[in-house]
């Protein structure tokens, strides 16, 4: 799996992401600077990592979404290339028009940094084939603006087309306001685009891939992607 991790000023999770990709795919990802106009040739997966691009100025992800490299990412996605957008990456993907909706300030106004439980809604995507549908995984979140909102029509379309991939849930997989930490509509933690090749999610699967850290629930996402490309080859 040949992956490229985008780097913007103020991004700080790119090395965690690169570490997870190296560990699970056995290949060194390319680190791609925001001012570049092109992705490395042969790129199979683009990752937009987490952090605080441009200090979250204007709106989270707004300035990064207009960087030169994003034109290349849009063209890559339009041709079916896989894009994984995590945390600030999810905000950037929404601002760039790769995914619908917006990540607003958390309903309780607090920055949330803790492990959460996610219910995996589908296992038939390249990103979630390493999980079972309905499975609950525990991964960290670290964000102040993760409260997903979209207009009613967009939410209905996302739900109708099965494009909600992860929801905040209780440890036994129940959807409950008490476990919806940031107040996201329909407890949405992650969505996919209509073509099924761009996934955005607020939580950080890349931080739970090594037993030494405590948990390995995030491995399934990266191992699934590696499988996806091995089967395609």
């Amino acid at each position: 799996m040949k992956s490229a991790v985008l780097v913007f000023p103020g991004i700080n999770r790119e090395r965690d992401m690169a570490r997870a990709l190296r560990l699970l795919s056995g290949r060194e990802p390319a680190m791609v600077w925001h001012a570049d106009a092109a992705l490395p040739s042969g790129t199979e997966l683009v990752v937009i990592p987490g952090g605080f691009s441009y200090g979250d100025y204007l709106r989270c992800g707004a300035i990064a979404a207009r960087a030169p490299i994003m034109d290349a990412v849009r063209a890559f996605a339009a041709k079916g290339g896989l894009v994984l957008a995590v945390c600030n990456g999810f905000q950037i993907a929404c601002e760039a028009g790769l995914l619908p909706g917006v990540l607003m300030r958390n309903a309780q106004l607090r920055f949330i940094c803790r492990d959460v439980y996610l219910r995996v809604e589908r296992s038939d995507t390249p990103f979630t084939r390493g999980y079972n549908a309905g499975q609950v995984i525990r991964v960290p979140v670290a964000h102040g603006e993760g409260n997903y909102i979209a207009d009613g029509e967009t939410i209905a379309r996302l739900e109708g087309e099965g494009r909600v991939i992860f929801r905040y849930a209780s440890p036994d997989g129940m959807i409950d306001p008490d476990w919806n930490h940031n107040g996201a509509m329909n407890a949405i933690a992650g969505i996919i685009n209509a073509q099924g090749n761009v996934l955005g999610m607020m939580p950080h699967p890349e931080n739970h891939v090594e037993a030494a850290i405590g948990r390995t629930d995030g491995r399934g996402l990266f191992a699934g992607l590696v499988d996806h490309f091995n089967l395609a080859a």
Partner: protein
Amino acid sequence: MAGASAAMMGTETMKARVTVTLKSGILDPQGKAIEGALRSLGLRGVVSVRQGKVFDIEIEDADRAAAEAVLKSAAEKLLANTVIENYRVEVTG
């Protein structure tokens, strides 16, 4: 002329203001917090608060219509996220 404003160079400039506000119906937790803070200051009569952003922009070498077109484009492309926000452009002089 990087670093020098058009005014310093003696060219004609226009001043404008772009105001960005949240659409009605969009939850505004920051506005709610400000509303609560105003109430706790004992200010009477505050019913609700919605917060937004103001951009004061200088435009050079443009007539009014051209300046408005540039600002509208700026608002659409970057200053506002029209999924959740409205914007208003005013050329002030």
